[in-house]
């Protein structure tokens, strides 16, 4: 009770025992908070999927969010893809030339690009651009009571605010990744063929021979998970934003950091799963070299 919160005098003299007890209490509280946080985002994700499946969002909210997520992200994703392709060419060229295998540069650049670097780096860029902006926007709405206003008008905030963003990330992040892959292929090609003077025929021939549909599709497949994670984490951080400008800033930062870590974890787990699936389809193993 308010007036009875002071510790009884007899217990104040316990010294080290009390300090240990306090430490255990704090650790326990942190663990409980962490578990509550996980439960919170699990419930948040569950309701997002339920609302997505049970009630179609309005066209107006979908279009504006798709524009924000998709169209406005095009330049940064295209730039990221192009530079990944060129940097891969720069990094790999010397080693491959020493082995006399520079004509196979296309296979290496394009394989690394479509399977790993394109999806992961595009998702990382989008976690920064889209995820943080979602957290900041929804966090501001939370702080200025706009989310409460929605709920008070009988409009479910998850359906109105989260579902269009989730759908946008789910649909557009794979498409943006395809765009990043394509720009990477173009960047790598031009750098290798025009600046490093690698024979155009062999560059394209080895690229086509070694990079298959499975490689491209597995890269894009992963981005559905990355997209879902970026949207859910960004929106969840925004919805649970602490008060004030500092709270909004922290929500935006946490959205990026948590999304990035989740992308890396998902990437590892999905690669393990996809590798198993690949060996199931082609038991003879990898085909490069």
């Amino acid at each position, binding site marked *: 009770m*308010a007036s009875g919160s002071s510790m009884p005098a007899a217990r104040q003299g316990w010294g080290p025992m009390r300090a240990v007890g306090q430490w255990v209490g704090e650790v326990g509280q942190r663990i409980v908070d962490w578990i509550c946080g996980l439960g919170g985002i699990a419930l948040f994700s569950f309701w997002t999927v339920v609302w997505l499946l049970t009630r179609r969002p309005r066209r107006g909210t979908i279009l504006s969010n798709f524009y924000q997520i998709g169209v406005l992200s095009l330049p940064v994703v295209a730039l990221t893809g192009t530079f990944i392709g060129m940097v891969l060419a720069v990094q790999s060229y010397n080693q491959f030339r020493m082995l006399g295998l520079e004509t196979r540069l296309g296979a290496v650049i394009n394989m690394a690009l479509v399977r790993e670097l394109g999806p992961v780096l595009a998702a990382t860029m989008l976690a920064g651009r889209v995820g943080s902006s979602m957290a900041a926007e929804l966090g*501001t709405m939370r702080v200025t009571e706009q989310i409460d206003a929605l709920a008070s008008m009988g*409009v479910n905030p998850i359906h109105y605010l989260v579902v269009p963003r989730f759908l946008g990330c789910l649909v557009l992040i794979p498409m943006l990744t395809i765009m990043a892959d394509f720009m990477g292929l173009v960047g790598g090609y031009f750098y290798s063929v025009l600046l490093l003077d690698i024979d155009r025929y062999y560059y394209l021939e080895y690229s086509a021979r070694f990079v298959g549909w499975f490689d491209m599709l597995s890269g894009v497949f992963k981005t559905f998970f990355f997209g879902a994670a970026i949207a859910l984490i960004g929106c969840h951080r925004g919805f649970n934003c602490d008060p004030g400008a500092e709270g909004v800033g922290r929500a935006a930062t946490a959205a990026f950091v948590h999304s990035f870590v989740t992308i890396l974890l998902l990437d590892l787990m999905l690669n393990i799963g996809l590798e198993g699936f690949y060996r199931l389809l082609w038991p003879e193993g990898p085909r490069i070299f």
Partner: protein
Amino acid sequence: MDVSGGHGESKEEALLRADGLWVRFGRQVVLRDISFAVARGQTLAVIGESGCGKTVLLKTLVGLINPWRGAVYFDGKNLSSLDEKQLALQRMRFGFVFQSAALFDSLTVGQNVAFPLEQHTRKSDEEIQRIVVSRLAEVGLSEDVILKRPAELSGGMRKRVGLARALALEPEVVLYDEPTTGLDPIMSDVIAELILRARQRHPVTSIVVTHDLRAARKVADRVIMLYPLTRLGADEPQIVYAGPPEAMESAADPRVSQFARGEARDRLVETGLSGGV
């Protein structure tokens, strides 16, 4: 503590009733055993100093915050027992005017007022436009503001737009959270007048959370005063006054008369910040 009496209404006649409400955030209890009832058509003012839980109480009444213990009954239904869809239907019968107006930044003023109509009715665009113009006129705003963004408006205009939006669906209950806070005395009086006019035009039940006693005296039939739990003993009731606004200054409880007269007395130094229950 039940404060439904005073004006003779029974619990059966009450449109909105709080029954033994407790609200806590983490370990901190903000509301303790709050009970009151508001009869249909009545205006209740909830007053008290900052941090006493007035806004939390208002949000609990509309189901934005779930009570830890106790229940809110609206038209005989316990709001905590309703599912999402039923609760949304009940919320359409409420209008909520937020302290910061809580207008949607991404929408224009017209779209803000039209928002509840677009979400919950099948009215044509022309009809919605007509209602928007009429609601804005009711709060003294011309059609010129329809295309403006909330950021382009003054504080008083934003509160008016918030009121117009809250009245868009002609709700049965309107909840006002600090409607006059941050406004100059004239604009505060304008808002108080608008609250009275809204009540005359539509037969609404209102709950006004405020620490502006002038506004409370002007609009309220009845007042309850909350006291912060941090300064209360374990067994003391949190509602320290329930009665007509005009009797506050002569109340026997010094906490009430001190608040009514706006006197600092022993409060120059803040004490008792040790937390809730």
